[in-house]
Every structure is written in structure tokens, then in C-alpha cells.
């Protein structure tokens, strides 16, 4: 009987949280509940990163996905629904079952590919966790300097674009 280590147990629990809340995100009718479960799912992913001893990434995951993106979505949600209506049930598309076989098919394909090609030798033998922050910083500012700068420009452009898009036209003329 294969013994289950603590890590494996934790992985199982976290995976369960992630997948369960992800399924709820995809199927729940109340979009606000979806958002809460989305946040839970993100938290689970941060847990996965911790299991992979990617502590820096886990913190960034929480900071960016929960602290920024989820909050942003909640904000957008509140702005795009009539206030004082907690009943914001969202119906799914007309043929909401149609994507199901597609999703399952893609899962099957991916799973098959991973299981066949995810090598047996690729087992985490490096139990020793490496402090990741310094390595990531080094990589970002040396080898990945250009993508790093491009990402910063992308963020700036996205910020300006979002402001322009969401800005209300106060003047009468369309320009």
C-alpha cells in the first residue's frame, strides 16, 4: 500500500480546493460567489507554488491575483450591476453543455500527453529548497532584461488604455 506523505496529502487537499472552487467558478449562477471562489482558487494556486518551493511566486500570486485582479473584478462587477440587487444570477449560454465535451476532450488530450511524456525520471530529487527571490531578480535584470522592460511598457500602456476606455465622456462632442 503506497504511503501518502504529508506533502502528497497537502497537494491533494490543495488540488481539491483549486479544482472544486474552479468548477464552482465555472458553474455557479451568482457571479459574486464565483468571484469569491475564484479568489479561493487563486489562493490554492499560491499553495501549489509553496509546495513547489516557489515562495516568491506564491507571494506575488496572492498580491497580484487576489489583491489586484480579484478586487478589480469585484469593482467592475459592482459598477456593472444595479446596486441593491444581490440577486445577480447569471444564466449560462443557451447550449451550455456544448463546451463540456470540448473541455473534457482537451483534458483527455493534455492528460495523455503529460502522462506519456512527463518522464519518470523527472521526480523532485532536489528536496532542498533554493531561495528564489535573488535568482529571479538576477534573471530579470540580466538575461530577461528586454522582456522585463517590455512588460513594464505593456503595463503602462494597459494602464493608460484602461483609463481612456473607462473614462466617461464629459463633453458633448464625441472627440
Amino acid at each position, binding site marked *: 500500500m503506497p504511503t501518502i506523505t504529508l506533502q502528497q496529502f497537502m497537494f491533494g487537499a490543495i488540488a481539491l480546493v483549486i479544482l472544486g472552487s474552479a468548477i464552482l467558478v465555472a458553474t455557479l449562477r451568482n457571479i459574486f*460567489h464565483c468571484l469569491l471562489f475564484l479568489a479561493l482558487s487563486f489562493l490554492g494556486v499560491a499553495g501549489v507554488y509553496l509546495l513547489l518551493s516557489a515562495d*516568491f511566486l506564491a507571494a*506575488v500570486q496572492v498580491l497580484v491575483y487576489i489583491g489586484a485582479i480579484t478586487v478589480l473584478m*469585484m469593482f467592475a462587477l459592482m459598477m456593472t450591476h444595479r446596486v441593491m440587487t*444581490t440577486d445577480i444570477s447569471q444564466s449560462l449560454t443557451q447550449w451550455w453543455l456544448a463546451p463540456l465535451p470540448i473541455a473534457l476532450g482537451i483534458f483527455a488530450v493534455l492528460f495523455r500527453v503529460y502522462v506519456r511524456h512527463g518522464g519518470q525520471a523527472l521526480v523532485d530529487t532536489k528536496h532542498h529548497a533554493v531561495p528564489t*527571490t535573488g535568482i529571479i531578480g538576477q534573471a530579470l535584470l540580466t538575461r530577461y532584461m528586454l522582456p522585463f522592460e517590455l512588460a513594464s511598457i505593456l503595463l503602462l500602456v494597459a494602464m493608460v488604455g484602461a483609463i481612456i476606455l473607462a473614462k466617461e465622456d464629459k463633453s458633448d462632442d464625441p472627440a
Partner: protein
Amino acid sequence: MQITLTGIIRLVFERLHIPANWVAPTVMLVASVIVLFFILFVVLYLIYGLRKIMGWIQARIGPNRVGPYGLAQTIADALKLLAKEDIMPAMADKWPFIIAPIIVFVPAYMVYLVIPFGKGGSWVAQDLSIGVLYISAILSIPIIGIITAGWASNNKWSLLGSFRAAAQLVSYEVPLALAMIPPVMLAGSMSLQGIVHAQQGVWFGIFPKWFLATQILGFAIYMMAALAESNLIPFDIMEAESELVAGFNTEYSGMKFALFFLAEFAGMFTVSAIAATLFLGGWLPIHPALSFIPPVFWFLGKTLVLIFVLMWIRSTLPRVRVDQLMSFGWKVLIPLALLNIVWTGAVVLFFPR
């Protein structure tokens, strides 16, 4: 050999024949429980202290009936809250309404895991190598709880409050995080213990080598952002009793309200403790000659001074408007914080340690 929590638990586990790899989680769990009780204690007397200080500032006595000098007053209040009826608004979104206070409280409590109360590993629950980043990440979570609370209450005051809260907390999270970066740069570490260690020593035999020396601007930015993050009075527009009828927690009562309250005061202690760690040398004595006083007292002393400053500000300044708050955050604090980072970069570049 020092007696540490880990050592005790390992000893107990060995006696009970529990596998050794369960030790670390258990240590975390026990440490968490200890921290939780510490928080409860701290919050109880912070509330008491606040009421007393406000009383003095406003030329009155403050609580003085329950217990000697009114010391048991907060405990009585807490008991009263626990005994109260837990009201659920009629059209409320039930589960979000219930978990919202928990989402707010848990992160406030999780931050304590990395705060070094004293020298060495036994005075910090978990000295993470990414400590500062962890703090910022965790501090961003309560916003979700506050929005959820406002949303789920099905009350327009609550919703408006949570709108304001979302805007304010997201806005001030940025200068807060930016103000925390210069100490990291100066120390070359994100671990809070590392940052404290980097502040050891004195200049000219008198002045402590605290980061405050080069980071007066950063400290000021941090303290202002911290005021907003823990929504204290000049920036408490998300609760704003006189405008929004207490904002997001209008509909809350009983234990759930107590959790919000707890989180708020825990947050006050947290930001002060972080400020003391990052800028004021944490548990380091003000001068090596004073190191006979245990480090934990230094730490608590500095933290309490900062808390007093926060309370002082809270009870003297009027509330600002929403638009003033936002424009101050985005147009003043963030540019200044960025400038401070550039300045610190110059310092690190030209005066390497």
C-alpha cells in the same frame, strides 16, 4: 541550549512516536494559536488604551468603572458583543455575509507570523525569506472581505462604504508597498530579521544606525499610508459614521462585528510593529549600552509609541473628503515614494555597506 517552541514540540512528538515531519506544521499551528491569543490580549488593551488616550486628549476620564481604572471594561464589552443576537439582514447574501469578517480577520492575524518580537528564531513564528513581500501580499487580502461585507449586506450604505474601501485600500496599498522597499534595498534582504540585523550599530557612538536616518521621507509615507490602510480617522471614509452609518459593517452585529473590530485593532498594531521593524530597528536597543533591557521590550516599546502617535492623530485630525484622499494618494504619496526609491538606490550605490 535555549528552550524553543520547536524543541518542546519535537520532544513531545518523539515521546508520542509521531513522525518527525509533522513537527514543523505543528509548530506553525501552535505558534499561530499563541499569536492569536497574543492578538486578543493586545487588542483588548489597545481598545482600552485608545479610549483612555482619547479621553485625556478630549479632557475627560475615559473608562473607569469596570475593574481597577476600568481595565476590565473592554472584556465586558467583548462579552456583551458575544452575547448579543446575531442579526442576519433580510435580503442579505447569506454565506458571503458570514465569511466576510473571517476574510478580514484572518490575514490581519497571519501577518503576525513574520513579525520578529525579539532576537533569534524563537521570537518569530516563521521568519520567511520573503517577509516584506509576504506582508504586502497578506495585507491585500482583507479588501476582498470588506467588499464582500458591503456587497452581501444588501444595504446602500454598506455598498457605498465598500466601494470607498476598495478604492482607498487599493490606492494606499501601493505607497505602502513602495515605502517598504527602501529598507529592503538597504538591508539587502526581505526577511524581517535580516532587516533588523542590518540596523545594528551606532554612528559616532551615539546615533543608532536605524534606517530612519536616510528614510525620513519613506517613514512619513509609510505612516500616512498605514493610517489609511488601517482606516484611522483622517482616512476613515469607508466607515465614516456620520456619513455612511459605519459603512461596510452597518449591518453587522454580535460576534461578526467583533471580528471586524478585532481585525481593525490588530491591523493598527501590525502596521506599527512593521514600521518599528523597518525603520526603527525593531527589537534593537536605542544604544548598545542599553542592551540589558530584553529586546522584546524594546520592540513593544517602539510599537506602542507608534500606536500612540496613530491614536494621537486619530483623535485630533478631521476626516478628509474622498476625492482629496484619492488625489493625495495617487498624486503625492506615490510619486514621493518612487522618488524615495530612487534616492535610496543612489544611497545604496554610493555608500555600499
